[in-house]
């Protein structure tokens, strides 16, 4: 008797593969790849963020303004009416002899378009492609920054990926409490824009009577205090230094045991800082974080070490977050929340329990029914079915796929549909047996006749699943994945595998001549 045919061998190998690779997930072993649970099953937070890329363009204009103004001052080029808005920067050059010097400098900055109202009235904007580049870079940098921050925050396995032109998807599976979630959200959203700015000492006492616009005309800007918006400061519009020059930030405790943040500047930053403080002894320096003034101490002497401190009534947690955010760099533009889904861990556990009960009871019903209806043929189909589930889980584990609630529904549905192939085949075999064919012939013809229908049916379902995967988001994808793997696996188990088992047993079945026992056909 030839028991091992190639079909049985493939079936056994695939089943063994399924069982072996499912074990790490089932037993939760230390080693091996496991199926990871989706946020809806283990709890956690999923947010889709939109990066306000227009802001990045605005910031770019601002930084170009800073460097041009710095250049003009250094070279003694006289310019007047220097101002900038969201998309352009304009000024009047006083001395026409300086045109070539100034324009050579402008030419070194990439992507600028220079227009002149008259010979000396400059209007500078960014070129269209440059704007695209700036926006693209902003999103890429935001992804990097948020990833850094979350890594330092110490949550398990955060994922941060870019989606589309300006969106970012953040997934945090490790979150357990509402407080933790709020912290994480704050950390993500904090722009961490640190600016060291000079106080406009000449008009500082007019701050409460000046309008925003009037202040701008003087090249100054009104900024609220961190203690409350009613306290205002008048600062020079162009910052001396920005957070880009910060290389480190740590939380320390001051003499009153309040948490403060010590930051260290890069060597280039330290030099600029040193120069500025040397020239401005007696004036005040404002430390501005995210558009709020935290302190404005008077400069007593040249500060050369390149370090500074932010103080201002932080809680320990908050100070920690600010330090992390400063270390990982500023967001190039602020982000807004477009979509958020958060699930508490207890709900996830409930969902797992509920779907396990559904899966097991549905499974048991199908198995009992198949045996009842088809006899031994039913048992063979059930073997294929069980092997199918193992293969689905093993393949998911291998590819590091995520099992979600709709994914579990997909498995449940696969159980229902995977028996379909066997039902079609078994019905065909029964028909041929009734026509009086021999058992070997009935099995042979049953499979070959059923094959075309099964393939057509499976391929169309697979097509639908692929489209679902391509156009679905998050959880829907999980559903499409389990269905697709289930269909492919059923080709091996339900078609190839059961065929192999019948071939292996065909002599035994032929000798038995008991159609009721083997195929559940009523005698007579």
């Amino acid at each position, binding site marked *: 008797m030839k028991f091992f045919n190639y079909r049985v061998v493939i079936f056994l190998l695939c089943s063994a593969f399924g069982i072996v690779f499912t074990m790490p997930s089932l037993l939760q072993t230390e080693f091996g790849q496991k199926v990871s649970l989706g946020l809806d099953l283990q709890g956690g937070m999923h947010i889709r963020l939109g990066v306000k890329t227009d802001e990045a363009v605005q910031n770019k204009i601002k930084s170009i303004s800073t460097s041009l103004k710095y250049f003009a001052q250094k070279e003694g080029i006289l310019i007047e009416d220097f101002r900038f808005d969201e998309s352009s920067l304009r000024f009047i050059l006083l001395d026409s002899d300086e045109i070539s010097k100034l324009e050579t400098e402008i030419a070194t900055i990439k992507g600028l378009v220079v227009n002149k109202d008259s010979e000396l009235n400059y209007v500078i904007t960014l070129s269209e492609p440059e704007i695209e580049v700036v926006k693209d870079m902003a999103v890429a940098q935001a992804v990097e920054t948020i990833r850094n921050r979350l890594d330092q925050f110490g949550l398990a396995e955060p994922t941060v990926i870019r989606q589309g032109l300006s969106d970012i998807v953040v997934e945090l599976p490790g979150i357990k409490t509402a407080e933790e979630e709020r912290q994480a959200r704050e950390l993500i959203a904090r722009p961490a824009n640190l600016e060291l700015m000079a106080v406009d000492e000449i008009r500082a006492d007019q701050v409460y009577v000046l309008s925003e616009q009037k202040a701008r005309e003087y090249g100054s800007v009104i900024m609220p205090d961190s203690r409350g918006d009613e306290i205002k400061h008048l600062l020079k519009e162009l910052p001396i230094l920005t957070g880009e020059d910060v290389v480190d930030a740590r939380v320390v405790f001051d003499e009153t045991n309040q948490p403060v943040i010590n930051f260290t500047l890069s060597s280039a930053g330290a030099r600029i800082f040193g120069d500025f403080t040397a020239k401005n002894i007696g004036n005040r320096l404002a430390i501005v974080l995210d558009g709020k003034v935290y302190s404005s101490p008077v400069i007593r002497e040249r500060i050369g070490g390149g370090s500074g401190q932010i103080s201002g009534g932080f809680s320990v947690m908050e100070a920690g977050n600010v330090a992390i955010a400063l270390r990982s760099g500023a967001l190039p533009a602020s982000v807004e929340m477009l979509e958020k889904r958060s699930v*508490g861990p207890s709900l996830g556990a409930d969902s797992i329990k509920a779907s396990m009960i559904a899966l097991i009871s549905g499974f048991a019903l199908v198995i009992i029914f198949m045996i009842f209806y088809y006899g031994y043929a039913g048992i063979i189909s059930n073997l294929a079915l069980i092997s199918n589930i193992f293969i689905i889980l093993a393949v998911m584990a291998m590819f590091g796929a995520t099992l979600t609630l709709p994914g579990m529904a997909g498995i449940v549905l696969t159980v229902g549909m995977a028996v379909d192939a066997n039902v079609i085949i078994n019905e065909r075999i029964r028909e041929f047996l009734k026509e009086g064919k021999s058992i070997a012939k009935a099995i042979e013809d049953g499979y070959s006749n059923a094959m075309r229908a099964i393939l057509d049916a499976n391929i169309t379902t697979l097509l639908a699943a692929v489209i679902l995967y391509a156009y679905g988001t998050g959880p829907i994808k999980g559903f499409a994945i389990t269905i697709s793997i289930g269909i492919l696996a059923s080709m091996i188990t339900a078609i190839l595998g059961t065929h192999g088992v019948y071939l292996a047993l065909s002599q035994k079945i032929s000798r038995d001549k008991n159609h009721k026992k083997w195929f559940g056909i009523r005698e007579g």
Partner: protein
Amino acid sequence: MEFFKSDRVYDFMKYKIPFLGLSVFLVIASLVLLSTKGLNFGIDFSGGTIIQVKYTQEAPITDIRNELAKSEQFKNATVTEFGTKDEVVIKITNTTTDLGSDIGDQITSLLVSTGEFELRRVDMVGPKVGGELKEKGITALILALSVILIYVSYRFEWRFAVASIVALIHDIVIALGVISLFSVEVNLDILAALLTILGYSLNDTIIVFDRVREGVSKSNSNDLNEMINSSVSNTLSRTTLTSLTTFFVVFTLYVFGSEIISGFSFTLLVGIVVGTYSSIFVASTFLVQLQFSIANFRAKEAEKVKKQKEKERIRAMYEKGIV
């Protein structure tokens, strides 16, 4: 065990008028429901926020409503029991883009006085994402239908494709009608369920059509009605059996599955019933309505075979070097 005698042929076509009548009635009724009552779109498509709150004791729904009514922002919130008496779902049409203080945080502080609770789920979908999801969903549905149309046309004939698409649209419309009737909240998972119904019902239809195709090439009869009767009868055991097993598992999912997937499993249950009905009574009937001609089909198939043979003959000639 057997449900149906496999050698018996039932005369389905004799009753095609009442069945078609029933289908037309159901489709029209569904369309009327959809245009008057409409669908109850959930936050995935319409945007908004859903908050699932579990209390340590029975949820004080009246208190919750009162507290929410005090706030300008949440006064149009709806509060409903969810699964058990301890749990409620608060649905709000507002969204917030602020990461620092989201609606979950705001609700937590508003409800402090109502007892001890835990926020188990906060889902917020902004209007931009909602619109995008809707667009993607419709694209997926149309794309799936057209791919199926192409595949079935290629494997069978265009009339089969059109008949199966008619059956599918029939199923989807009726399923949507039932969803509308029971005010099931339409979210992404319902879309997944609809697409599953599509695949499932098509499965059934194709198995029947495969028999028709086989019958055409095997028998000599030109009587389409008779052929459809025998094909549907032959596959009747299989259709009912598979529908039953699938129905079992989806039913357990509906009964034991958590409240979150009840809409999904409910839609599937409806779809299985309608899909099974349509592949037995509607799809094949439509083949007749489309004036499918066995003789023509046979001629085309013969033509295909002839072309194939011709190709092989020419290839053989080339290989032998005779040109």
